[in-house]
């Protein structure tokens, strides 16, 4: 319906997109903005991680062994990173439900979308809860932002800062999800011409949070 539709792909496609009038990307404003925001957010998290890397390399104090520090004892045996593994799976699951929600959104299946989003939010909340649990465990073992008995002080500093910042993103995401979910349920978007891209936009954010966790998991818990 709008001549914004250009079929050329590859380099030519890029040229066409950027030399078109009105708009470059064939997507709603909100979605374009979310992508750009995520790009900016990527820089934020990257720089957190770069700083973490630099201080970790720079300090001469020994670096605690994450798989021990984050270990949990189950049935007598010490299982490294157990909690983290669970958290990771929780977050991935939530990503899955979110993806489905987006899909259902496009099918204008409001109830399914709603429930899937709620599920996502619950999983997200669970994640935050487990993180809180992990924090308390570490604190009880004497890990503090300014020092810890197992090695370099920067370990605690970076850990609390980065996971904390990520946790805030998750929390924010949960709220965002709930708002959108209920709007979907109440037919808020029906009045707006029944357009459910908002669900995808919300999804973009949520998947990004998951994405960040993938990196934190690798760099902080495994490396």
């Amino acid at each position, binding site marked *: 319906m709008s001549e914004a539709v250009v079929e050329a792909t590859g380099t030519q496609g890029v040229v066409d997109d950027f030399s078109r009038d009105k708009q470059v990307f064939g997507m709603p*404003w909100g979605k374009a*903005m979310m992508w750009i925001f995520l790009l900016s957010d990527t820089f934020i998290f990257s720089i957190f991680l770069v700083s973490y890397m630099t201080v970790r390399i720079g300090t001469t104090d020994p670096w605690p062994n994450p798989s021990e520090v984050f270990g949990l004892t189950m049935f007598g045996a010490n299982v490294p990173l157990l909690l983290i593994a669970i958290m990771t799976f929780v977050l991935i699951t939530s990503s899955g439900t979110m993806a489905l929600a987006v899909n259902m959104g496009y099918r204008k299946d409001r109830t399914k979308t709603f429930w899937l989003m709620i599920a996502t939010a619950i999983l997200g909340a669970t994640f935050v809860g487990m993180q809180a649990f992990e924090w308390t465990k570490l604190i009880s073992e004497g890990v503090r932002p300014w020092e810890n008995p197992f090695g370099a002080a920067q370990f605690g500093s970076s850990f609390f*800062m980065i996971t904390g910042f990520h946790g805030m993103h998750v929390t924010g995401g949960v709220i965002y999800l709930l708002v959108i979910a209920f709007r979907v349920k109440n037919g808020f978007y029906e009045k707006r011409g029944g357009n459910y*891209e908002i669900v995808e936009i919300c999804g973009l954010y949520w998947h990004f949070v998951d994405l960040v966790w993938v990196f934190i998991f690798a760099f902080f818990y495994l490396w």
Partner: protein
Amino acid sequence: MAYVAIADRDHEEEHHDPDTFITKYIWSQDHKVIAIQYGMTAIFVGVIALALSVMMRLQLGFPDSFSFITPERYYQFITMHGMIMVIYLLTALFLGGFGNYLIPLMIGSRDMVFPYLNMLSYWVYLLSVIILIASFFVPGGSTGAGWTLYPPQAIMEGTPGVDWGILLMLASLGVFIVAFTMGGLNYITTVLQARCKGMTLMRMPLSIWGIFMATVLGLLAFPALLVSAIMMLLDKTILTSFFMPAISSYGADPGYVGGSPILFQHLFWFFGHPEVYIVALPAFGVVSDLLSTHARKNIFGYRMMVWAIVAIGGLSFIVWAHHMYVSGMNPYFGFFFATTTLIIAVPTAIKVYNWVLTLWEGNIHLRTPMLFAIGFIFTFIHGGLTGLFLGNVTIDLPLSDTYFVVAHFHMVMGVSPILVVFGAIYHWWPKITGRMYNETLGKWHFWMTFLGTYAIYLPMHYLGFQGVPRRYFSMGETSFLPDSAQDLNAVITMSALFVAATQILFFINVFWSLRKGPKADPNPWDATSLEWQTPDTPPKHGNWGHHLPECHRWAYDYSVPGYEDDFIPQNVPADRAPAGRDHGEH
């Protein structure tokens, strides 16, 4: 739904006109009102920063003759002066002010894509300004760590405002970044997704290109500042050791261990260098339009100009450590950064050439905005070239941290973009207010500011050559400085006082024009770009009345052969006027 480009969804519910005074002027979502709010706030803090600079100059020119300028206050003054000028004045004025006003008008859209967010952006910015101003009044006063806020010194004893000042400064910066992000997302999305029919990127006026690229830089660079601010806050408040190694301050051990001060410098400049281009690029863009319009000639080498802007933007992310040649970082970085830094000279050079070549064979009206534009070229060339001294790692050894650096960045940032700001205000004044300013006053304002600032900054280079360090409250006796150096300082101060005083002319002009300035006609400069083609002046909410404009040509069809007018507005279809050389089609 929102899929459909704005041009095709041109029904009224798009912009429910605000009725009450409040919604119209205070909680307005109209990009033009927000722009003016931004502009006025920015200029207000700018004047504060100006006053601070005057006090700094008083001390430097006539040391120890003013009891209210203690070393403590001096260092607070330079810090706030620098920080305000760079961030709260120029960044906010160019992007929040001109960005907001010009983007929708120049690309032919009704407003920013998310007006509500846009409004929030301003109010959050205002909050950051309030926090900033508040830091003057807290116990201990504002921070005196220098605008670079280098730790450990910024958060250790021996620095003014180490208790509250630094906290408020970091908080204010954080809030500012949030505000900027809200605005910036808007500007970028609007430029990319909400242009009018026929407005391709390669038809946009260079002002938009400059502002657009600057915003992109902002969104990618401010994260570095935000993150380092957060980490410094943690270091200060809960004694984490990101930037803090084990030290002995005032003979006592504050309890830090293992952090790296150099890391902060890297992060700060990873933000800081793009930041200087954030204030430069909009100036580049705007000045191009001023030159072209008042020279009645198309901008020379438009495509090159666009690519230069993009190239500078890209390069600005890989030159940051040229601020750190003597910071004790890994010395081998010197080779890499010296090379990348000097490479930047090439795209910048192209821009300079094209500006000058735009004048070549033009038909130049030396109206006030044009004066400022040409003045800009002069000062910018000077400042840029001194940048090449500093960029060359070897030459930075003797010159770093001396007044040569101060001279460089004032020439290139302390006056060049400021000249453009003034030029732009004069240029768009008729559109913004619907009234004309006073030409004679404007000209006087230009001459005094231009010549005065040159008299301030040219001599500073020579203090630098002699090795006068920056951030020195007073020199006292040294074995290597002749007494004449102090006389030079006095001269500089004189001219600074003079220039600062002449800014009155600007404000007189503003108020005169607002009261009894003659009514301006919609397009006093016979300009081609869309903002001059609005149905009413100043443009009403929604800008375009009932029908969005259609763009048929690039913004620089001046003096097209075979057309009697010496300009063809962008919305004149090709069948009513010669097509000229259009960059829209490939």
